[in-house]
């Protein structure tokens, strides 16, 4: 039921007692302002944190080879371990569903040129799965595919900055890139969140590289991601299993740390996960703390307001106001002030964050902001808080005896 007279009474009361309303509004607005800023900053910190680890899939395992450092099974120390295509196939076949994506990598440095532009770049010869491992995003064209591998086609996928460097303002897609005297067709241009270096790379099919640079089946590195459903312990065990199997395969001593190196991102992921979790808890504590401080503040103000209005409420009661109508005017006024002031505080907080955003980036705080859900949630919390904060004093006010209220002092 909408009682226009009740609202008129409330608006008059707010309007005619501006100092009081502004004072209580200010407290609420300030609490919410702090809440929004703290929450935003904490969020920004978390964003920075998350971003630092988004470049590569965080369930990755990188496998490199080197020289043995220990003699084993009659083989001398100092033997070079060289991965070949068969090792890639072995990992791919033997571990089945435990492996999500897998790719080989061969590293080369080339001088690439197009017309008069020329520069040195790193080339990675890879399998198609590499796209998911590196979270490479296609801007134009396509990535390396299985057909390229099978046919050893001379195609490359170049980074956004390679295109900018060599093709200036024209499009590179479909053109031929000269790399150390061999023409490669550009079939795709990619972007990567990992930074400028990642966007100055050139990808080519692993088979093509093997044919051109040595006519062998050598590979430099194998990268894979494990099934993301594995938990932390399973992931660690999986990394150790790969390590063990490969050492057996190459007759490497168990305690040889150099010959085969398996780097499991799960170890880092756990630390990141714990840090993010801790950060989340800190955010929650800060958020709740500020909100509770705000609610306590409103409560205090409401108690003061009721005291301030004792006489007025006593007069109203003497004139026939029911306890319910007394509770209504106090409560609705409280909710109204809280909601409006809270919203103003929220907007101010968001505004401050927006203004400070460029400066904050230096302090590892990225995109500090509060989400729409949070804004709606906070607004509802505020209205509830205003209700709770206002209810007890209002109830108390409704029990004021008019004679007490009207006593001359």
């Amino acid at each position, binding site marked *: 039921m909408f009682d226009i*007279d009740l609202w008129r*009474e409330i608006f*008059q*009361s707010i309007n*005619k*007692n501006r100092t009081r309303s502004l004072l209580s509004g200010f407290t609420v607005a300030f609490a919410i302002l702090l809440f929004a800023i703290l929450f935003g900053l904490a969020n920004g910190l978390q964003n920075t944190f998350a971003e630092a680890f988004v470049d590569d899939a965080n369930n990755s395992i990188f496998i490199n080879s080197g020289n043995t450092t220990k003699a084993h099974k009659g083989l001398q120390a100092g033997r070079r371990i060289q991965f070949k295509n068969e090792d890639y196939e072995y990992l791919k076949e033997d571990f089945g569903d435990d492996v999500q994506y897998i790719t080989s990598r061969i590293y080369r440095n080339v001088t690439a040129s197009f017309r008069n532009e020329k520069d040195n770049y790193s080339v990675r010869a890879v399998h198609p799965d590499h796209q998911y491992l590196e979270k490479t995003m296609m801007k134009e064209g396509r990535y390396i595919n299985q057909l390229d591998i099978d046919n050893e086609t001379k195609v490359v996928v170049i980074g956004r900055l390679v295109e900018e460097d060599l093709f200036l303002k024209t499009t590179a897609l479909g053109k031929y890139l000269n790399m150390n005297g061999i023409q490669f067709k550009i079939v795709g241009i990619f972007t990567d969140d990992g930074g400028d270096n990642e966007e100055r790379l050139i990808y080519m099919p692993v088979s093509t590289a093997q044919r051109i640079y040595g006519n062998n089946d050598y590979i430099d590195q194998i990268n894979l991601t494990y099934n993301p459903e594995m938990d932390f312990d399973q992931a660690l065990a999986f990394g150790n299993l790969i390590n063990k199997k490969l050492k057996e395969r190459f007759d490497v001593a168990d305690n040889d740390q150099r010959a085969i190196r398996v780097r499991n991102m799960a170890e880092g992921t756990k630390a990141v996960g714990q840090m993010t979790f801790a950060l989340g808890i800190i955010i929650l504590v800060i958020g709740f703390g500020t909100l509770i401080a705000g609610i306590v503040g409103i409560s205090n103000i409401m108690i003061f307001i009721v005291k301030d209005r004792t*006489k*007025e409420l*006593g*007069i*109203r*009661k*003497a*004139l*026939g*106001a*029911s*306890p*319910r*109508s007394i509770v209504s005017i106090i409560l609705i006024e409280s909710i109204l002030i809280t909601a409006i002031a809270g919203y103003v505080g929220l907007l101010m907080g968001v505004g401050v964050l927006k203004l400070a955003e460029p400066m904050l980036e230096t302090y590892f705080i990225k995109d500090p902001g509060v989400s729409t859900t949070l804004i709606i949630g906070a607004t509802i919390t505020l209205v509830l808080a205003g209700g709770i904060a206002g209810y007890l004093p209002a109830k108390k006010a*409704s*029990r004021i*005896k*008019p*004679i007490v209220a*009207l006593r*001359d002092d």
Partner: protein
Amino acid sequence: MLTINKLHKSYPIGDRSLHVLKGIDLSVKEGEMVAIMGSSGSGKSTLLNIIGMLDEADEGEYILDGVPIKNLTEKKAAIYRNKFLGFIFQSFNLINFKTAQENVALPLYYQGLKRKERQEKSLFHLEKVGLRDWAEHHPSELSGGQKQRVAIARALAANPKLLLADEPTGALDTKTSYDIMAFLQQLNDEGKTLLIVTHEEDIANMCKRIVRLKDGVIMEDVKVDQVRAEQYV
């Protein structure tokens, strides 16, 4: 109109209690104008508060216009106060942030009248107390006498059966006091029942009946020849 039998009231003071009213019997008929007199501590204000349903008696009977006033819930007390009683206070008790007209309209609001009706009625009553032109002024812009008139208009607005005045002239100078008394007498002439608490003899003599309280009992209850206030104005 109003009947009180063997009314008792005590207030706790620390761990002892102060017996303020010790068996009051009082009956007021319609159209009477009664002064309740007594020094401070005699229990006169307590009696008025009980009559005004602002406080409840410990013992005894109180019947107002045929309705026994007992064990009232807050809600019921609110309704009865609104319907039966009009209050006039020593310190006026106007709401400062409301205009004279809005103050007068307040009891009508609690009666549930429509805004337009409230406006008409409140202006009518302001007219009656001679303050029609001051309707839009706030209490702070009015003199003491004017404030009390607004308070009287407010008390009248709900058309109560009984007007209760607690030292209505206590905060006013003699001339203004007589002015207000003249007005209250005029209301009484029109048939309103009035109960006035005062400790001033001259004010009491302007009523038709004087009830003297001392130490919680009625010492004297006499009818007097009313002194008309107009002759002093």
